[in-house]
């Protein structure tokens, strides 16, 4: 029976994966017919359509609701190591457990609704989200950034040596290559040269940025 077909675990996992590719990662060419024929060939199209819409809706709703807490959580984790305990307060508020509790509550409510999902489906969706949320979060962030992002950074330090033509003696220089790129576009490489004085100037500026970040994170809002 078709309803039983829709409850299976493995095809649902594949479906969620494909929907995530389409919704969050911008992967082209994922059509309803492709999904149905690949994953649920026994199910007639008119039954598959509402089912697909339901799963797509559940996934999208997470993108909306789950994102902010996940971002704050990962920020706290990134800053955590040498930072004072007031920042760690944030971490407990935005802990992963809260995400999952909310998730479980949401899914349970869905299973109780008329025309909602089965508990088997809820289990598959829960498993899928736990393993994919980081990737989905990053995708959503990247898509909303229209400036170039920093894709990579590499550097080396050269020591200049004395020459009879130049008064410079032994001035080391740092060569830094930044890889920048806009979402969906090729990278641009920017190569910069710094002497020791400049490096320390930048360091001072960066410590001001870090100061700003810790002020922002510690302010409840």
């Amino acid at each position, binding site marked *: 029976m078709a309803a039983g077909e829709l409850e299976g675990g493995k095809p649902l996992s594949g479906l969620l994966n494909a929907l995530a590719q389409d919704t969050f990662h911008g992967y082209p060419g994922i059509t309803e017919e492709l999904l149905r024929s690949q994953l649920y060939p026994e199910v007639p199209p008119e039954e598959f359509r509402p089912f697909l819409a339901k799963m797509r809706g559940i996934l999208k709703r997470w*993108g*909306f*609701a789950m*994102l*902010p807490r996940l*971002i*704050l959580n*990962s*920020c706290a984790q*990134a*800053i955590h190591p040498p930072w004072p305990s007031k920042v760690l307060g944030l971490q407990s508020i935005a802990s992963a457990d809260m995400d999952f509790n909310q998730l479980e509550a949401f899914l349970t409510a869905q299973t109780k609704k008329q025309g909602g999902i089965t508990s088997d489906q809820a289990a598959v969706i829960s498993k899928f989200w736990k393993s994919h949320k980081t990737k989905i979060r990053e995708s*959503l*962030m990247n*898509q*909303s*950034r229209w*400036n*170039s*992002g*920093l894709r990579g*950074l590499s*550097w080396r*330090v050269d*020591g*200049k040596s004395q*020459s009879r*033509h*130049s008064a*410079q003696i*032994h001035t*080391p*220089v*740092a*060569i*830094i290559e*930044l890889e*920048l790129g806009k979402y969906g576009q090729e990278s641009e490489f*920017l*190569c*910069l*040269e*710094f002497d*020791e004085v*400049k*490096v*320390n100037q*930048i*360091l001072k*500026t*960066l*410590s001001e*940025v*870090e100061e*700003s*970040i810790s002020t*922002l*994170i510690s302010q409840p809002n």
Partner: protein
Amino acid sequence: MEASSEPPLDAKSDVTNQLVDFQWKLGMAVSSDTCRSLKYPYVAVMLKVADHSGQVKTKCFEMTIPQFQNFYRQFKEIAAVIETV
């Protein structure tokens, strides 16, 4: 003593640029058409760089907080190394 034609050591190669200015701002993305409740902080940087001819260009980019942390950490490493050279 043979006259050698050494390239002047101060010549900047065509490839590397000098950093003229570094401006930054800490922003918070609140909402977008793909996600109503974004709420993520980011560091936006505007660099002014001068190439070997002296021409100044502007480069802008953004970093997430973890990316910024890595950026900062790398600069600290560079400072440590350049000190010892």
